[in-house]
C-alpha cells in the first residue's frame, strides 16, 4: 500500500485483530490475513488454528530454526505454543464445520453488502482455488474480510452483488480495507471507521454499493 493514501496492509490487519477476544479460536487465511498474528493485542490469548490440523501455533519460526514438518495454511514454517495439539485433516475440518472457530479472517476479490463474498475463482477462469475457504466461510462463528478497497485498475471490490462465483452467502460481518472498516448491512455497507486523510466522498466514489455513514464517524483505530 506504500504510495497510496489510507492504511498499510499491517494496519488493516491490526484493526481486525483488535476485535479478537480472549480465548478465541482464530483461523487466518493465506496472504493478508496472516498479518493479523503480528498484531500486538496485549494479554489477549488467541488459539490460532490452521486448516492442516495445527491447533495453537505461534509466530513464524526464526530463520535457521524452522521445523520442516510444521507449516501453517499458507505453507509458512511456524512455531507451536505450549498446549498445542495436532489433528488430521478430517478432524481439523470437524473443528471448522462444527462452529468452533470464533472468527476466520479471509482475503477476497469481492464482498457484497448482502454479506456474500468471492475469493476462489476469477472471472472467466476454468479452475479455482477453494482450499478451506468454503468450509470456513460457511461454518465459522464470524467471517471477517481483509482486502484492498479497489482492484488494480481501480474498480470497486465492495459492491452491491458479487459478479464472480461466491464462496459463501450472507456470512461476512466485517470488512477492513485501506479506506476503512465496513459492515455489510443488506442493502448497503455501514462505514464504522474511516482511514486517516480519506473523505467519505472518496470512499463512496470507490465503492460499488451504497455506503451509510453514522452521525459521528470515528477515524480508523490504529492501536488497541
Amino acid at each position, binding site marked *: 500500500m506504500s504510495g497510496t493514501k489510507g492504511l498499510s496492509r499491517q494496519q488493516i490487519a491490526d484493526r481486525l485483530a483488535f476485535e479478537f477476544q480472549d480465548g478465541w479460536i482464530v483461523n487466518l487465511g493465506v496472504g493478508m490475513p496472516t498479518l493479523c498474528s503480528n498484531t500486538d493485542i496485549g494479554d489477549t490469548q488467541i488459539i490460532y488454528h490452521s486448516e492442516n490440523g495445527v491447533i495453537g501455533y505461534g509466530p513464524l519460526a526464526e530463520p535457521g530454526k524452522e521445523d520442516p*514438518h510444521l507449516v501453517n495454511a499458507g505453507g509458512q514454517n511456524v512455531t507451536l505454543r505450549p498446549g498445542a495439539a495436532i489433528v488430521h485433516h478430517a478432524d481439523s475440518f470437524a473443528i471448522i464445520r462444527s462452529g468452533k472457530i470464533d472468527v476466520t479472517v479471509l482475503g477476497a476479490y469481492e464482498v457484497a453488502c448482502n454479506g456474500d463474498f468471492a475469493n476462489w475463482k476469477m472471472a472467466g477462469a476454468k479452475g479455482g482455488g477453494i482450499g478451506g475457504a468454503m468450509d470456513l466461510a460457511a461454518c465459522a462463528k464470524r467471517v471477517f474480510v481483509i482486502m484492498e478497497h479497489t482492484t488494480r485498475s481501480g474498480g470497486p471490490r465492495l459492491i452491491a452483488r458479487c459478479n464472480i462465483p461466491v464462496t459463501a452467502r450472507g456470512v461476512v460481518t466485517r470488512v477492513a480495507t485501506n479506506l476503512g472498516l465496513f459492515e455489510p448491512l443488506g442493502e448497503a455497507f455501514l462505514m464504522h471507521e474511516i482511514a486517516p486523510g480519506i473523505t467519505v466522498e472518496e470512499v463512496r466514489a470507490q465503492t460499488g454499493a451504497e455506503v451509510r455513514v453514522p452521525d459521528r464517524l470515528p477515524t480508523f483505530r490504529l492501536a488497541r
Partner: protein
Amino acid sequence: MKTKELASFADAVRDIPDGASIAFAGFGPVGVPYNLLNALAEQGAKNLTCVANTTGGAGQPRMPDIGRLVEQGQVRKVICSFTAATRASDQLPFTKYYESGEVEAELVPQGTLAERLRAAGAGIPAFYTPAAVGTELAEGRETRSFGGRDYLLEHALPVDYAFLRAWRADAFGNLLFRRSQRNFNPVMAMAARITIVEVEEDILPIGGIDPDEVHTAGIFVHRLVRIPPAPAGIWQPGPREVRR
C-alpha cells in the same frame, strides 16, 4: 506377523494398473510422498484419477507431483481443492492441460475432500455438509434442510491406492506422523484398498510404537519403503533438514 517393508519404491508401485485411482497425502510440501510419486512417474501407469489437496507446485526446481504426472500424460482426472494457484500470477503445470480439456478436474472444498475420504474409510456412503451451499459447486445438486439450515449431499470417495509419507513406522505398518505431516495421511489410508507408505526413519520392529501413540493403525497399511539418504531418496524441500 510378516514385515510389510519392501526394498524399493519401484517394487511398491509396480502393480499399479492403468485406470487406478490414487490419493496422495500432503499439505504444502509436508507429508507429500515425493518418492512414491517419482516411482509412479517412472512406472508409467496411465489414465489415473488423482486425489490430493492440490495438483502440485509451480516452483522450481520441480518436485515430483501430480503436475508432473499430468505433463507425462498419465492422468485422466484430478479431484482437488485447488485446480488453480492461490496467486493469480502463478501458473500451475496442470492448468494448461485442464483448460485444453486433456485432463478433467473435480474441484472440492478442502474439508469436504477430507470428509469424503474419511466417509469412504468409515463405511458411510454419503453425508450432508454446509460447505459450498449457495455456490456454483452446489448447482444442480441435492441440498436438504436440517434444523432450518441448508446442507449439501456429498458422497464417499474411496480410492484404489493411497500414497503416504510418515515419520516413523513399525514393520506391521503402524504409523507416526510428525507435526503437520499428519494432514491427509490418516484419512487417505482409511479410504484406500492398498496403502503404500514412504517412511523417513528406519522401520521399527513390530511393536516398536506404543499402541496408545499410533496415528494410523497397521491394518490400514500394506507396503512400507524406507526413504534412503539423498540423492537416492527425495526429501521434502524446506529451509533445512531437521531430523532426529
